């Protein structure tokens, strides 16, 4: 990949990781986790593993929904 694009998507992934670590609200944490996945998906595609990219794109929301099952109970 071109260096500028690598820097851009790496910046997105790093920002997602840091904010997911620092934000205290649990919905904000989950949205930041989505930003982290959005940052690392272009790297997977650029290596040529499109099947891995499809699997990651389908499994990441399922893990989020599993976590939401606990977050809903905590909110109530």
């Amino acid at each position: 990949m071109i260096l500028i694009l690598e820097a851009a998507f790496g910046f997105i992934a790093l920002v997602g990781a840091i904010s997911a670590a620092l934000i205290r609200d649990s919905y904000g944490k989950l949205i930041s986790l989505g930003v982290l996945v959005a940052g690392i998906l272009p790297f997977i595609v650029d290596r040529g593993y499109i099947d891995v990219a499809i699997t990651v794109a389908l499994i990441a929301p399922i893990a989020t929904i599993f976590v939401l099952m606990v977050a809903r109970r905590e909110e109530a």
Partner: protein
Amino acid sequence: MNAIFALGLAILVIGVLSVAFVRPKTYVARLINLEIPAWGLLLIMLTYDEALAILTFVAVTAISTFVIVRLLSWRDASC
């Protein structure tokens, strides 16, 4: 050093530190922070060209999240 490898190491270190020193000391925050080093480790595994290993790792991460969620729901409202 490869850029993907360096990025994966950085995310792994951030995730491990955030799990160790979790800010609101609840189980949910710790569980969400536990997802961060998993993605960092996936990025490191991407450097070594093993597609099947990455697929297995992603699936096992999701299943272990589900297992931990069930485990948390057994303890009642204490979390």
